[in-house]
């Protein structure tokens, strides 16, 4: 049971965004519409899954710093086809997201957690845990961006919703920061099993951008 929990914790108790405060800047800055969030979800999911999976074949005996460089190189290589595909799937959105689309390629799950966490598991467990971590990010990104789009612009997926009042400040980065902060507080009050270690757990859990 505990083993299963530890694999699935990336989705709820060990959520990368709400618990570890990782990869928060794309959510804060670009997660103001669902279309933006879908593009970022696609990029994050594809790059993270492929990079960590490919990175698991790196020999463990190499030094931490050297492995970090190799992971960054792998993520950069994976980024190229992912971006080409994204331009087909989400025309116009990638330009809007700007540098945050590129920054997804060097998120802390790939660069740090892959070595400290995922590559210490068996291949099967690693895959399940990685998917849970990615889904944890995806769900938070989608929910936050849906709420922001609805409240800030009065639209849902680009379609106008019958709303009387818009809080356009929520569409700005500071609005995203406040909303994400509230979501983190709510999450910590609802999920009591979140360990303090997840917040102050050293370098591996500190947000990278």
């Amino acid at each position: 049971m505990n083993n299963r929990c530890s694999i699935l914790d990336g989705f709820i108790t060990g959520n990368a965004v709400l618990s570890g405060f990782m990869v928060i800047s794309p959510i804060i800055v670009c997660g103001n519409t669902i279309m933006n969030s879908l593009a970022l979800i696609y990029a994050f999911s594809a790059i993270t899954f492929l990079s960590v999976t490919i990175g698991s074949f790196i020999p463990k005996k190499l030094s931490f710093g050297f492995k970090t460089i190799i992971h960054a190189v792998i993520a950069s290589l994976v980024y190229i086809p992912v971006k080409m595909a994204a331009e087909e799937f989400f025309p116009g959105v990638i330009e809007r997201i700007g540098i945050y689309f590129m920054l997804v390629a060097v998120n802390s799950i790939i660069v740090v957690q892959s070595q400290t966490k995922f590559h210490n598991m068996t291949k099967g467990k690693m895959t399940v845990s990685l998917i849970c971590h990615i889904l944890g990010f995806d769900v938070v990104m989608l929910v936050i961006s849906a709420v922001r789009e609805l409240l800030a612009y009065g639209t849902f997926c680009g379609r106008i919703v019958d709303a009387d009042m818009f809080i356009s400040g929520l569409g700005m980065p500071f609005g995203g920061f406040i909303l994400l902060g509230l979501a983190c507080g709510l999450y910590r009050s609802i999920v009591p099993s979140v360990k303090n270690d997840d917040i102050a757990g050293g370098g591996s859990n500190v947000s990278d951008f």
Partner: protein
Amino acid sequence: MQNKIKSQRFIWIDIMLTLLALVTMEYFYYGARTLALSGICVSVSFVAEIISLRLMKRKFTADDLTCISDSLILCLMLPAVMDYTIASIACVFAVVVAKNIFGGRKNMIFSPTAAAYVFLLTSWKSQVLMFSEPHVHTGIFENAEHLVSSASHGFNTSGRMNYTDFEILMGNVSGPAGAVSILLLAVAAVILILRRDISFGAFAGTVIGTAFLAFFVPVCNNQWDSLKYTFSTNMVLFAAIYIISDRRIAPKRNYYAFFYGFFIATFSYILVITTGKENVIVILSVLFAPVSLGFRNLENQIDTLVKEEKDAEDLWEAIKSGEFEIPEAEEVLTDE
């Protein structure tokens, strides 16, 4: 301790009295709608404070009544014809997001009122900066038809004001009623300073900084006009009293508080003459929160060092006078 608690409550009462005077003036110019708006703001803030404190598992005490004065300050910065829902959202934002999320009244980083006003400016700029003319009374459930931009906007863009000195003094100009009643604000400033309810250093720094620049880098041709209009527009005096000089935010020592106010005044004046934005001083009071925090940390470090030095001096005096004997090394070893 008891005296300290009492003084905090007396500060709140003094501030409330001055604010009620401004609300009365607002009622005179804009009618019953201002009272309804104030009532709604106060009620919403009060309920938000109680609920958020309950969620934080804290008790509501008389000191938490500051949420009422904060909401009144915010209300006085808004147009009398402001939408009730928007004003309510701003009040909830001030209490919950700008104050209690950061740890409540004992850990305030910036003025909740100023933060809520900036939030309003970013979300509903057109509603916040459009006003009805003085003496145009709007019904409690009516929407205003003819709105105009504020006198501050006219001054920032043209460098002129088409009002007499008496009108400016009495607040008979378009703008947020609480922030343009210059005579009442001046009286409120004197009362609050004499009763030590606001930080004199921060207030003096803001006033001197603004006056210095307004006189030597005038907005209009006449230096005295520049001085006069600069103080009566852009909520300068109002922000200097109720936001920048707020004892909960400003540095404790007048020396540091002076520079805190001076920096805000200087930068806001430069921004006003370069960009023409309205009420920049309120925005800058939020942005300068780290300066205040830095000064407060410095004050704490100085206090700690002074206390340590005093303890060391006391110990040395005690040793010299023979009240305290240094144990011999042998005695210490024997005790161990």
